[in-house]
C-alpha cells in the first residue's frame, strides 16, 4: 500500500475532489469551534 497512491491520469481530479471537500469540512469545523468557544465564554 503506497503512502500516496498513484491514480494515474485521474490523479489530479481525484485529489482535487478530496482536497476541496476536506478543506471545506475543515473550514466549517474551525469556524464552528470558534463560535462554540465564544458561546461558552
Amino acid at each position: 500500500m503506497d503512502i500516496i497512491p498513484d491514480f494515474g491520469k485521474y490523479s489530479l481530479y481525484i485529489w482535487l475532489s478530496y482536497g476541496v471537500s476536506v478543506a471545506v469540512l475543515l473550514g466549517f469545523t474551525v469556524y464552528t469551534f470558534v463560535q462554540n468557544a465564544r458561546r461558552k465564554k
Partner: protein
Amino acid sequence: MGMISFLANPLRFKKFARIAAPIFGVLALVLIIAGIWVGLWRSPEDQLQGHSVRIMYVHVPAVWIGMMAYAAMALASLFAYIWRHTLADELARACALPGAAFTALGLLSGALWGKTSWGTFWQWDGRMTSTLILLFLFIGYMAVWAGTTDKRRAARIAGLVAMVGSINLPIIKFSVDWWNTLHQTSSVSMPDAPGLPPSILLPLMLMTFGYSFFFGWLVLSRVLNSISKASDRRQRPAAASTTMETL
C-alpha cells in the same frame, strides 16, 4: 411527531443539543476518516471507470446531504409557519449554509467526475441543472435573511422560499427517469436496481453517514449559538437599563 414536540421546548432542545452535538462530531470524524481511507487506499478501481470511481465517494454523499439539508430546511419552515415557533426558524436557518456548501461540493466534485467519465465538466442535463437550482435556492434563502432587517419578516419570506423551492427535490431525484441525461438511473435506493458491490458500497456509506453526522453537528451547534446570541441581545438592554438606574 412526539420527538418534535418534545424538542420544541428551547430548554429541552438545548439539553439535547449539548449532549448530541459532540457525539455527532466524534462520529463524523471517525466515519469520514474511515471513508477517505477506504475510498482512496483500500477500495479497488472500477472495471469501467478505473480509479475515477473514487470521486463518487465524495460526490454522491455531498449531493445527498445537500438535498437532505434542503428537505430539513423546508420542513422546519413549514413547522415555523404552522406553529410560529422561532426555534423552527432558527433550525431552518442553520441548515442553509452547510446545505449550500454540500451542494456546491457535490456540483464541483460532479464536474470533476464528469470530466473523467463523460469528457465534459458540465452539461445542462436535468440532474445537473436541478442541482444547480438547489444551490441557487439555498443562496436565495440566505439572501432573504441577510437582506431583511425585520427578523420576523425575514423568517416568513425565507420560509416561503424554502417551502416553494422544495418542489425541486423530487425533480432532482426523478430527473434521471424523466429526461435523457448523462447520469445513470438510481443504483442504491431502487429495490430492483442492479446494486453496487460491497467494495464500492462501503466507502460510499461511510462517507454518507460521516457527512450526515457532520451536518448534524454543524446544525445543532449553529442553533445553540444563535439561541445564545439571541438571549445575549435580550439581556443587553436589560443590563443597560439596570446600569442607568444605578447611575
